[in-house]
């Protein structure tokens, strides 16, 4: 069970001067674990720890989801010369909470002729996939649900499973708009999965590991986007584009293009099931941004240049959790800007962009990166 809290023995061996030592969440989890062991049997300890982690992630999921909905509305209002939500609480921060309560109490409209089992299952698949990915992300030193040694591989593999939920939703609703939206979404996510994977693979070559904690640790002397020269920058840009497409957000929101398909695959959903899809979209955006932050921008690692100098020490005063969320929310803001400034692409143009431009560039980029790493030209 201890491993499930992400113990990074490798890191704790490298203690330095007091300002260099980030707070290691491993010690906290270790203490909790030891305390529980004293109080109960190993089986119940494991159960209790699982419940605690589960509740923490549920809370985290809800808070991040609600905050992102609020942020989206504020960012969009800012771009569109509006005020956005401003009535409930200071700056309207409780608006999304109120919206959630409203959605909870709304009627779940049963759809005649729908495949009820799949119809009800679909939102949960999307949510479960979200949780599975969230578990693998390092939020700070030692703040990990699981630290798999194939972290990136796991993230890519699991995150593309959300397409199953979307396809199920579209198919089981027995609605033509939904089916069209689901088919679009299927084609889109499957295609862009390639670019996401290859862009991340570019960095894996540079990092030499797929374990997320090692990748973050590898950026102690500089983020990979700076270390990897131009290929890393190209990979980053491709990742952001493909990641936006994978989350079905504008300008790639064809799956729910409201001017064509009213709401796409979740047209027939109501109440909290609709809210699940809605939240999942935002959490997906958070996942894409946090993976990008972890892989390219150092995750929780502060801005470092070189091995050890004054600049690095000043940066270290800012706690890693803040670094992580600052980077993630910056990327989320960029993704939001895309949505509110660009018109939507057409489905064939979307696939053209992926298969004719992003994928070839990506493959060449991968080769260049491999060559750079082979020659040792990176920092």
């Amino acid at each position: 069970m201890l491993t499930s809290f992400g113990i990074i023995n490798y890191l704790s061996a490298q203690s330095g001067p007091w300002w260099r030592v980030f707070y290691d969440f491993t010690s906290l989890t270790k203490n909790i674990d030891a305390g529980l062991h004293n109080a109960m049997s190993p089986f119940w300890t494991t159960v209790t720890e699982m419940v605690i982690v589960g509740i923490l992630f549920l809370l985290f999921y809800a808070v991040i989801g609600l905050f992102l909905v609020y942020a989206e509305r504020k960012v969009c209002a800012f771009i569109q010369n509006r005020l956005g939500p401003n009535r409930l609480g200071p700056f309207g921060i409780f608006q999304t909470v109120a919206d959630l309560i409203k959605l909870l109490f709304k009627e779940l409209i049963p759809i005649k002729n729908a495949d009820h089992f799949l119809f009800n299952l679909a939102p949960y698949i999307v949510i479960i996939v979200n949780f599975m990915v969230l578990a693998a992300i390092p939020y700070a030193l030692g703040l990990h649900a699981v630290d798999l040694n194939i972290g990136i591989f796991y993230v890519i593999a699991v995150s593309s499973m959300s397409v199953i939920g979307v396809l199920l939703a579209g198919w089981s609703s027995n609605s033509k708009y939904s089916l069209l939206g689901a088919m679009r979404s299927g084609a889109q996510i499957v295609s862009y999965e390639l670019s996401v994977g290859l862009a991340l693979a570019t960095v894996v070559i540079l990092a030499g590991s797929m374990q997320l904690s090692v990748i973050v640790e590898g950026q102690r002397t500089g983020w990979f986007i700076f270390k990897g020269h131009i290929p890393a920058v190209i990979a980053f840009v491709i990742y952001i584009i493909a990641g936006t497409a994978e989350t079905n957000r504008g300008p790639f929101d064809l799956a729910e293009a409201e001017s064509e398909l009213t709401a796409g695959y979740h047209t027939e959903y109501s109440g909290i099931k609709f809210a699940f899809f809605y939240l999942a979209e935002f959490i997906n955006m958070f996942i894409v941004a946090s993976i990008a932050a972890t892989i390219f921008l150092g995750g929780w690692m502060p801005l470092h240049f070189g091995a050890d100098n004054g600049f690095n020490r000043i940066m270290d005063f800012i706690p890693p959790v803040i670094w992580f969320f600052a980077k993630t929310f910056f990327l989320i803001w960029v993704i939001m800007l895309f949505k509110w400034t660009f018109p939507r692409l057409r489905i064939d143009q979307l696939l053209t962009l992926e298969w004719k431009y992003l994928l070839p560039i990506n493959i060449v980029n991968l080769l260049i990166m491999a060559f750079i790493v082979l020659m040792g030209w990176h920092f």
Partner: protein
Amino acid sequence: MEEKVKDIDTDEQQEYIINIGPQHPSTHGVMRLVVSLKGETVKNVEPHLGYIHRGIEKMCESLTYQQIIHLTDRMDYLAAHMNNEVVCLAVEKALEIEIPDRVKVIRTLMSELTRIQSHELFWASYGMDLGGQTCYFYGLRDREMVLDIFEETTGGRMIVSYNCPGGVMYDLHPNFQKRVKEFLKHFRKVLPEYDDILTNNVIFHERTVGIGPLSLNEAISYGITGPSGRASGFSCDVRKHEPYSAYDRVKFNEVLYAEGDAFHRYLARVEEMRESMNIIDQLIDNIPEGPYAVKMKPVIRLPEGEYYQRVETPRGELGVFIISDGNKTPYRVHFRTPNFANLSVLNHLVKGFKIADLISIFGSLDFVIPDIDR
């Protein structure tokens, strides 16, 4: 058994029919398009009309001419002023009344403001149809200023009912000139922003250039007028060919393109906003003094005969055909509405394009559904 399998594979069987509308975000009103798809490719579109058919032509037969004007507002609600104007012009022509200069200039100014606000809403909603929601808010923000000007003078924002036979209902508000100049100054500044966010956007080009091309001959044959027709090179501006009100004393260009695709239909409208601003510029400082209406009899009886009058609305040529039998109510009124004629080309344009292009083409023709149904 084998025959059955074969049957299913034919194109006829693979048609996937979806209903766009009557309640749909991009039909801009209550209209139903029955779309036959193969994959995402549109094979056939059939508009089903009548969801807001109010029988305006029938109602007109039992109303006096003054009353008809208030009904015409409800046809093309974005060009309410022009709809009023066309009836007034027809009545004035029938009665052979010479209307004062001031009225002519006021009508022209109001028409051009109407044109600008209508094209602004087109710009806004077209951007939204293509997924750029920010456009909608930018467009409506600036349109609000024009509506405020309308409200000040006429009391109405969209449904202005400002014209009456022989002139206009009330004189201009003292603030009118100042407000219009403020608006022009503001709008000249923000129009380049419109270009930045939509006209010069790569994705927007991808979505519109070469989509739904319409040749000149087709445009004439299908009776496509207004900016949609002019984008195909069809010189059909009534303001040029048959000047009414004060259009004979202003200089402006008829915006003409040859390509006729969705992008140029869009571009024609954006350029028309610039031309409209030029027209307002020429008139706003020299509104002649004088009465704002001719004294008319309370009951207007048109002499027996047939009268046809057309004006240029933001969507094309609006014609009114009045048959009078000398009574206070017309014997028959027929409106040749631009949207109704423009609708006939929709099926021809979208065949073979994707369903997303259907929205793009439908948007670029700038339909106002009550104008089709009447």
